[in-house]
């Protein structure tokens, strides 16, 4: 604990969605691990913060969940993208890229010239 960066506000949801997009159906622990691995262990969060985010996405209808069995035979709740979720990933990805590009131009003005 303590090492690594905090997950920036509002980006956790996109990470979850993106993870589910690439991995298909996955349980909470798996999503948390996957986000950590993808970030190259640079990001570190309490796994617990993931669950409210999952619940929120479910309330918004971007993901759905059902109980299943893990590869090592543990009962776990599996999340997957809904149709609305897939659209949301695309939209948010696009918006994020635009924002990042704009910010990039601000932060490195000489490159954009």
């Amino acid at each position, binding site marked *: 604990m303590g090492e690594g960066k905090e997950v920036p506000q509002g980006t956790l949801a996109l990470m979850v969605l993106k993870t589910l997009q690439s991995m298909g159906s996955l349980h*909470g*622990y798996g999503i948390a691990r996957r986000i950590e691995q993808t970030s190259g262990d640079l990001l570190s969060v*309490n796994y*617990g*913060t993931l*669950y409210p985010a999952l*619940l929120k996405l479910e309330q*918004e209808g971007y993901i759905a969940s059902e109980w299943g069995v893990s590869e090592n035979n*543990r*009962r776990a709740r599996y999340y997957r993208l809904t149709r609305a979720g897939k659209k949301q990933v695309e939209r948010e990805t696009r918006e994020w890229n635009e924002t990042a590009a704009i910010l990039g131009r601000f932060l490195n003005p000489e490159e954009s010239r």
Partner: protein
Amino acid sequence: MSLRSSLLRMAGLFHSQRRDREFQAELESHVQLHIDDFVRSGMNPAEARRQALIKLGGIEQTREAWRRQGGLPAIESLTQDVRYAFRAMRKNPGFTCIALLTLTLGIGANTALFSVVNGVLLNPLPYPHSEQLAILYQKSALADQGAVSYANFLDWQRQNETFLSMAAFREQSFNLTGEGEPTRLSGHEVSADFFPTLEVKPVLGRLFTGDEDRVGGEPVALIGGGLWKARYGSSPSVLGRGITLNGVRYTIIGVIPETFLFYNGYGTQVWTPLGQWNDPTFRDRRIAMGLNVIGRMKTGVTLDRGRQDMERVAHTLAEAYPDADKGAGVTMVSFKQDMVGDIAPFLLVLLAGVGFVLMIACANVANLMLARATGRAREFALRSALGASRGRLVRQLLSESVLLGVAGGVLGLALAASGTRSILALLPDAVPRTREISVDFRVLIFTLAVSLLAGIGFGLAPALRAWRSNLMDALKEGGRGVAGRRLRAQNAFVVIEMATALVLLVGAGLMIRTLAALWSVDTGFDPHNALSFYVAMQPDLGSDPTHIRAELRKIHEAVRNQPGVVSASVLAGSLPMQGDSELPVWKIDEPKPASAAESKWTLFYGVEADYLSAIGLNLLSGRFITQVDSEHSPQVVVVDDYFVHKYFPGQNPIGKRINVGMLDLQPEIIGVVGHVKHWGLDTDATAKVQAQIYIPCTQIPDRFMPLVGNGIAMVVRSANDPGAQIPAMRKTLANAQQVVYGAETLEEIIAGSLAARRFSMVLLGIFAALAVVLSSIGIYGVISYLVGQRIQEIGTRIALGAQRGDVLRLILGRGFALTLSGVGSGSVLALILSRQMKKIIYGVSPSDPATFAAVAVLLIAIALLACYLPARRAMRVDPMIALRYE
């Protein structure tokens, strides 16, 4: 937040247990998966579990965060707050009881009074489109709002362009005979347009036709639903039945709904057509026989336009009939104004008063809560240390106070629902429209608003305290904390309470002074041990003047011979404070005035010799009427001193003759009596007709005798309780088929004329008493608290040699200072506010120094008494015990 997620979160408030269990399972599976991973990488299971939990960030924290997302946090914490508030209330029954009692009284009194204001002043009158209805009066030399003569009414009806319809009505009670014991029925004679104008439809049968509203029309009558039910068992066969009223046989043609009320609080029982009355006096344009006019304005016509129109009509009539209508006009007021206009200033003053009581109640509860909040400082400190935000603490305190307020509101509503009736029943006649007073939607909204406002009002102080409080201080001081600042707020509340109580005391004091002033007004007669009532003569009286005179003498004899009766007199005309009958007069050597407007007017009373002693007049000079003065002797008249002052200034009137118009008499003035306050104790001096004359009733000319027989009054003086005479009178006269009605002692009549003021005095008195009690409790609480706070200091002082008297002075001084600042600021406030009472007080200035001084002294005395109890406790502090507290 999207709608969908809002709904889901709302749903999350319910069946949350199942979802909780499911999430618990999910978390367990999460931890298990994590442990599996750790174990696979070679960690021992116990360490793996520890690491997994650390990585998760704690099971409970996660669940808490998840729950917050799951439901609506505001509502969830609100239900939590409310539940917590309930618990806090239950755990502190003493506080809760006192606070609830205070609020129930405060809110209950406000609700009760508002329901009266709502029912009487705010709600529209219970007639369809009642805003279009207006009452029309004849404006003349006699009065701004005088009765209308029938001939003028007919012309108004024909010539106006303002009204859809216009109708005349006249109160007339009837003797019902021929069916068992004779009964007196309340009634109205009305023109055919009366019910259509009010848009009232009969529940059975039909209304009067135009043909029935004429001389020679069929004698038909309408009866009220109440009479229909009581006398005819609500049978439809009542139509076509005969009913004998005042000796005339009428046919019942319809039934008016029982719910229809007109001015009086009880239902009228009979209506007959006005236009059938063929009496020359009634048809005389110069004479208004108690006729009133109501009209329904066309849609879109304002009162002002209506007034202009009616002025035009009055002008035309003045030109056409100068002897009657010269200088006469029309006064037009909305029906509602006419009905409730007089009571409005009283009710508004009372509403303000009761609002002040609630303010004091709130200040008291706020102080209680402040005291409690200090005791709970550690609880709050702990809660905020555990992560409750300031906002959350404030919200919790506010939920507690709002819960208290709402609970007080519910109890207050119950109190008001039961209390309003009893207060109104205690003081009948004081307020019109009382039957329409009820707890309706507007009253409910008012109570809810008042309860919420009160809750927030008295919760704000402790909540603000919680907002500002410093966590570290509170924990450090171990709960005794922040005394100085807290007391400042408490002191402020006590000063406000004292000031408000003083304002209410001044209000009540002014009303008491008003009534005292009115009671001590010399009425001009002696109301003590005197009684008056009306007599309806037997139905077969006929119109022979000799017979009628003989009957009047018989009535006099019968009443005079009752045991206990000292003197009695028949009275034709009207009783003081009960009605009016004016006549024009002019001196014998003057020409007859060309018009009513130029006449000298006077009130007239047709009386017998005993009237002087029966009502208790003051004979100033000459003699009063005696047995000698009869229809066979010279015409005589007795006048009052106002008459002399007005029409014979600086002369001796005795022996002078006057013309009494309308009665065609030229009597000689034989005596002067003191003026009687005919128009009421407070308004007599401003009435347009104040002069008074007394004529022997037997000398009233033959042609008017049937009118006299139509209804007379009697004034009786008895040796003891006059009220006890009433049943005997009733019995005696019933033998002659005569009905006694409207019996009242003269003292009751005077009291009735003061009903609205008495109502205000009683209520303001109750409010002031409540205010004094509440503010005494307030100051008692603050001083007690002060003593509790300084008990060690006091102990130390005593140990160091302070005298007990010094301690007493110290504590009382504090209370005195608070009271004085309250009384001071209250006096200033009362000076400003009491001016609003100008309309309802009499004989006392709004800034009456005696009243102000008296209530200030009273309040200071009571407040010091309230402070004395804790001060005495301080005086008796045992220094050893006080010091050991540390």
